[in-house]
């Protein structure tokens, strides 16, 4: 099961498409309902960030295996304006759009691994992993 499938994010409804595909893959890997909800919520946050701030990007899913654990890796890539201050966006309550500011720190808490690369003007790439327990 080492295929990769991507959903392009251009419209608000693409977020729903990404979420549904992610949930299906998570179900196939064997995640329980609580983890499925966590994964779906994390995808929703990542995809919404692309839609709100970059306007165009994609979310990719991959079933991964490491030693004797299995998991789901989600990569959100965009060519948007990038993030100015990385430490700032990882703080709870920071938002430039009047939202709750819980998106990225929330995703970090929802998932097991969280990796963000962003450079101003170069776009953003966020990779998160959830392991099957």
């Amino acid at each position, binding site marked *: 099961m080492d295929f990769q499938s991507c959903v392009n994010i251009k419209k*608000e*409804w693409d977020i*729903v498409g990404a*979420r549904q595909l992610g949930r299906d893959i998570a179900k196939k890997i064997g995640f329980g*309902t*609580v983890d*499925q*909800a*966590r994964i*779906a*919520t994390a995808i*929703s*946050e990542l995809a*919404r960030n692309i839609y709100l701030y970059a306007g165009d990007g994609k979310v990719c899913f991959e079933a991964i295996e490491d030693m004797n654990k299995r998991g789901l890796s989600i990569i959100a890539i965009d060519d948007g304006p990038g993030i100015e201050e990385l430490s700032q966006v990882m703080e*709870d309550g920071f938002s430039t759009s009047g*939202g*709750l500011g*819980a*998106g990225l*720190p*929330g995703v970090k*808490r*929802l998932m097991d691994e969280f990796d963000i690369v962003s450079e101003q003007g170069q776009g953003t790439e966020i990779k998160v992993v959830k392991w099957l327990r």
Partner: protein
Amino acid sequence: MDTKLKDIVLENSNDIVRMWLEEVQSKKNQDYTSTISNELFDSTNREFVNVIFTSIEKQGLTSELDDFSERLINLGWPLSYLTDGMQVFRRVTIDFILTQSEKVDSEYLSKVMKKVDDWVDPVINRLVNEYSGSWEHIVSLQRVALQELSAPLIPVMENITVMPLIGTIDTERAKLIMENLLDGVIKHNAEVVLIDITGVPVVDTMVAHHIIQAAEAVRLIGSTCILVGIRPEIAQTIVNLGIDLTKFPTKSSLRKGFQSALELTNRTVVETDSNDNNIEKLIDTLDRE
């Protein structure tokens, strides 16, 4: 030259129709239309070819074409049947004209092709337009229907209303929810509003943000908002996300929310004595006498 080509086609319409029917019939076996009964397929084919010939004869689009396409749309025939049919017609007609002509050079060939295109293309365009127009119409009707369903407000009891939310919440819908909620609270004079999110698949920060804003707006106009239908997995994700929902009461189910709504409006549910009890009491009193 133009009229000559037209005459060739019209005079030999029987041959062209026969060739066309054969081609279309052979297509039927291999694809989508295989579920359609033979009689219906035959009669539709004949009608279709008649429509094509009338439009060639009259040099343009006809009302017959409109009627025909409208009926096929209503019957749910695939658009590809019509476009395939027109393409087959183009091929058959060009082949036929070329076999009928003595000298064929490239100039003549391009003229024939242009002439046949002039017959076929407007008909294809019209058919595609009719079909896409009908689809757009259906989509817009469904959009309106969905919008009507998207934020219903039900006054279940004096001073208590319920808004059951089902499905994904996007920005447009969030706006509608807020408007309907506030309008409804004023209109039904509600003291307590229950927002039921049992049917919302994912509660992310945006959905939570909109719900918090709606609840805050309800508070501003003097009513109380209770969020009900929080499933266990949703509760966990809300905690993980670090969303603060302490500003208004929340309950796991609509039933519990309704009970606290009754308490807030100083009411309780009282079970009335059943008829059996009354009869027993009656018998008791009779016994004593």
